[in-house]
């Protein structure tokens, strides 16, 4: 594995190749070829990633400079990749889970006709490529390229079924909301470039001292705005649930392996800046926590299987930001990883359900799928357990690490976070129970066709389930075994600078055990309650009322945005277009023309045709001329004043 890092550019290159082959050959290639190319490149990328990972592990970080991207004046921005511990972890997550999703897609999307199938895989590959650029870039600009690239791909994939106008709106919304975040990111990049003169990570972090605390706060805040957009935090989260419009594997890709984790990656990458900006850290933590709880409340009452998962993602992302906000960078990355496992699992599982149910997504119309879809059911259950944070599933470790760090920072964070975790287990098991337990509530036809998905789909489920179960063991907390947190050790160089500045004060082991115990107990209690309550669910079409209704309608946030921002903007632009432009500016221009025309019609009347009046004007003009001569000084003075 020596020098594997030098070949790190191959990792994004292969998905790019896949994109080109599938994109250009989508008409000529057969479906199986397309899926082989699409998944194959991912597999190769994954293998190279493994190589890179071990190389990094053994030899540390490497920077590979490909070519100068922008060299203008003092700005030197190379197109360079940086293979270090953080990016290696992300590489594995992205390519690994990405590969599984590709594999899954090959079966899931099999109904599409060849051309669209090719397009789909091309987009998927491009998506992965963008994400790889994002995590591999050795400077903020390359990161920004990936950053916008995933936005683009999410746009393309969410709007994949382009005939549906609703889906297109969702895609557009995703892109525009992302752009709002990107704006923050971009401004931060400008700021860094302005103050430090470079955007290369190593140089920036080495020269943090050049920045005033105001600069750092501003930069980190702006970066965080970017993260808010990409990682769907309040107030820019509304696109993510709508992004469910895309095919389910895409949702898995967006929610698990790519895109939404970009914000986490970016903050983890810039950890030193954040550590130096406590104010921003507080904001990050508060926003993360608020998002975690807020999204969880919404998830409580959602009936679309994917929507529940989507809000759960938003909520989980909130936890990660909480972790980042309290300085638990490793915890956040850890949670990204475990979340990638189980959220991919859950989404793919949901996909399997939807596939079986013939694109029915409403859980009120499901139930009792346990028997028909045994593998799906089993893996989904594992996923639910993982996300709920039951030990020893992966979610437990990562979430626990974040919550403990939050407690260290501010106990209130912990309590609120725990409340969110409880809600998580509630809505996840509500989802589980309504889907798999009880009796089937769908149509007979659906029931008749219920069947387990093909192996190309179940295989990834099984792998992911396995990972969800054991994935947590790379980060065993200190209390269980000292120095067993291998992830932390691995990532330590990345966070070294921040660690120097942090003042960790660990809890007593006993207290930590107590807290873990209580929380686990509470979660199990909630799970039992939820399962019992919802396995007997019958769809009676009852209307929710009160708070439940508000939750079902997602706190009416979309409506609020529409009324406060979208509509006024539309009216404003209509006003500009119809009033200011037409009657105002252009009116002025045309008015000048009309004035000339009017003047012409009036002036021509001077030409009366009467010799007498002509001569009269001449005589009067002569008189005026003589008078002008008499008073020339007065007139000159007047003119001088005028001009």
């Amino acid at each position: 594995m020596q020098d594997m890092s030098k070949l790190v550019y191959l990792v994004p290159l292969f998905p790019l190749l896949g994109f080109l082959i599938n994109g250009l050959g989508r008409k000529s290639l057969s479906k199986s070829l397309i899926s082989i190319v699409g998944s194959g490149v991912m597999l190769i990328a994954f293998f190279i990633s493994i190589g890179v990972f071990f190389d990094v592990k053994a030899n540390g970080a490497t920077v590979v400079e490909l070519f100068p991207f922008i060299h203008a004046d003092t700005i030197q921005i190379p197109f360079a990749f940086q293979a270090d511990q953080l990016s290696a972890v992300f590489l594995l997550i992205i390519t690994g889970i990405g590969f599984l999703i590709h594999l899954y897609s090959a079966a899931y999307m099999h109904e599409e006709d060849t051309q669209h199938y090719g397009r789909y895989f091309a987009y998927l590959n491009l998506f992965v490529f963008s994400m790889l650029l994002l995590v591999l870039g050795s400077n903020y600009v390359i990161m920004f390229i990936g950053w916008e690239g995933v936005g683009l791909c999410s746009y393309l994939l969410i709007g994949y079924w382009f005939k549906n106008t609703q889906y297109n709106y969702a895609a557009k919304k995703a892109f525009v909301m992302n752009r709002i975040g990107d704006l923050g990111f971009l401004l931060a990049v400008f700021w860094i470039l302005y103050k430090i003169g470079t955007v290369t990570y190593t140089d920036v972090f080495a020269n943090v001292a050049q920045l005033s605390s105001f600069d750092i706060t501003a930069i980190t805040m702006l970066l965080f705005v970017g993260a808010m957009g990409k990682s769907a935090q309040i107030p820019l989260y509304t696109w993510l649930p709508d992004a469910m419009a895309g095919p389910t594997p895409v949702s898995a890709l967006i929610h698990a392996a790519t895109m939404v984790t970009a914000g986490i990656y970016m903050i983890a990458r810039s950890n030193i800046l954040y550590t130096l900006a406590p104010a921003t850290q507080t904001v990050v933590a508060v926003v993360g926590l608020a998002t975690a709880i807020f999204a969880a409340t919404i998830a409580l009452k959602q009936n679309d299987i994917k929507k529940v998962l989507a809000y759960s993602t938003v909520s989980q992302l909130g936890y990660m930001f909480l972790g980042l906000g309290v300085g638990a960078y490793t915890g956040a990355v850890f949670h990204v990883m475990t979340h990638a496992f189980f959220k991919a699992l859950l989404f793919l599982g949901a996909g399997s359900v939807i596939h079986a149910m013939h694109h029915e997504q409403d859980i009120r119309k499901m139930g009792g799928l346990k028997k028909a879809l045994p593998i799906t059911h089993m893996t989904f259950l594992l996923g639910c357990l993982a996300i709920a944070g039951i030990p020893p599933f992966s979610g437990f470790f990562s979430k626990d690490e974040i919550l403990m760090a939050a407690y260290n920072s501010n106990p209130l964070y912990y309590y609120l976070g725990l409340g969110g975790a409880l809600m998580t287990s509630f809505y996840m098991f509500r989802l589980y129970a309504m889907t798999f337990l009880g009796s089937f509530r769908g149509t007979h036809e659906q029931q008749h066709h219920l069947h387990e998905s093909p192996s190309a789909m179940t295989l990834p489920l099984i792998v992911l389930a396995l990972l969800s179960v054991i994935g947590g063991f790379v980060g065993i907390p200190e209390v269980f075994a000292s120095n067993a947190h291998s992830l932390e050790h691995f990532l330590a160089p990345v966070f070294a600078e921040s660690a120097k500045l942090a003042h960790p004060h660990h809890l007593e082991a006993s207290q930590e055990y107590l807290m873990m115990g209580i929380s686990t107990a509470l979660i199990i209690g909630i799970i039992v309650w939820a399962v019992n309550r919802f396995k007997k669910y019958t769809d009676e079409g009852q209307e929710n009322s009160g708070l439940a209704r508000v939750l079902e309608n997602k706190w009416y946030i979309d409506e609020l945005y529409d009324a406060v921002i979208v509509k006024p903007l539309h009216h404003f632009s209509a006003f500009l277009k119809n009033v200011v432009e037409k009657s105002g500016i252009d009116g002025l221009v045309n008015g000048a023309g009309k004035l000339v025309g009017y003047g012409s019609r009036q002036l021509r009347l001077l030409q009366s045709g009467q010799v007498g009046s002509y001569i009269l004007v001449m005589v009067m003009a002569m008189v005026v001329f003589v008078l002008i001569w008499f008073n020339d000084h007065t007139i000159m003075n007047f003119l001088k004043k005028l001009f």
Partner: protein
Amino acid sequence: MIPVLLILIPLITGLVTCFLKETGLARTWAMLSALATLAVAVTGIYFYSPAQLSFDAAWLPALGSRFTLSLDGMGKMLVLLTAISYPVIFLATNRNNYPKASSFYALMLLTQAGLMGVFVATDALVFYFFWELALIPVYFLCSIWGGEKRIATTFKFFIYTFIGSLLMLIGILYMYFQTADHSFAWKAFYSTALSGGQQAFLFWLFFIAFGIKMPVFPLHTWQPDAYEQSPTATTMVLSGIMVKMGLFGVVRWLIPFFPEAVHQAGHIVIILAVIGMLYASFIAIRQDDLKRLIAYSSIAHIGLMCAALFVGNNIGMEGVMVQMFNHGINVIGLWIVADAIEQQLGTRKLSELGGLAQKAPALAILLVVLAFANIALPLTNAFVGEFLMFNGLFRYNIWIAAVACISIILAAVYTLNMVQKIFYGEPSTATANATDVSGNIRLALVLVVLLVIFLGVYPQPVIDLTKDTVQAVLAVKP
């Protein structure tokens, strides 16, 4: 000799085209001419020494005007843009059957001669001449081959720009009398010291001319109408190359002469330009006409370039250079798409389109790439320019930059609106029988898209080409 050739080839071939009666012949001849110009431009720029790229001959000795031409970095870049654009434009509009095609192509080539002249002239009077030479054929092109309201619209456009040019002429004249040896040479203008009052006065005389050409808010109202009504080939020239004349003018004929005024009035211009960016973006959101939408989007982009011109730092200026080239490429691509749609479907109302992605997937993909170039997505060419320009603006003033940046969001809104309304959803009555683009148009679009991506990934050639100009221009400090 190269600059002379650049002017002479289109000029002479253009005149010859007048006499070619057969449409096909005229078309081929024009294409050959454009390719020849391209060949000369490329050879000249990459294989000739700077000395060989300038030309000097006596013209009006009594007036102190010499026929001097020379190519610097920015000139090379714009010459290249013009030279590349013309074959693409001819290729893309090849199938538009213009009546009296020979006159059409003749006028197009004359316009090219004018454009080339503008970009290579280093004598103010020669510059002014070519400035107008580029305009007059366009007047005829638009008025004869344009849309329904072509006559009034083009007339407005013509008078608008004519007033601007005349104001510039006064400025040039005034400068002329200020120079030590009464000369129109760029160098003489450059080395003439002016008082602050004179500078301010001249600044506006020149700027209004350039501002109308760009066009910058609030001098822009001729532009959407003109773009809408012109024949597409002309629109491409207008928006792709001609608007660059304004920007070029500012860099070559304004900033170096009036540093103090640029320093002072630049603030106003930047604010106006930024207002214009947002203003045009907002209007673009509500546009239903594809051509007008592109037009307003172009105003927004030009606004940014105009603002970045006056920030007075290398980065912003370099961004403008890059963006001048890239905007030309992109907007021509967009017009090709707009034309392909209008030619085939007979409408360019967004509300009447839809679902074209099913019928014309290739067109859809190409447009999507162009659309994302239009919103400056990274790895498309526009990103580099906008990145540098915003950067420059940011260095100038953080708040102005922040406000200006809002336009990138608005750009996403209107561009995606456009893409969605044209391509997505179910096919409408207008698009039910549409077919995909093919042949020349497709080839032209692919060429454009390849350029978009190539320059998006590797923008360095353009940056390197124009470096010297930027440094020279900014060397003057008030």
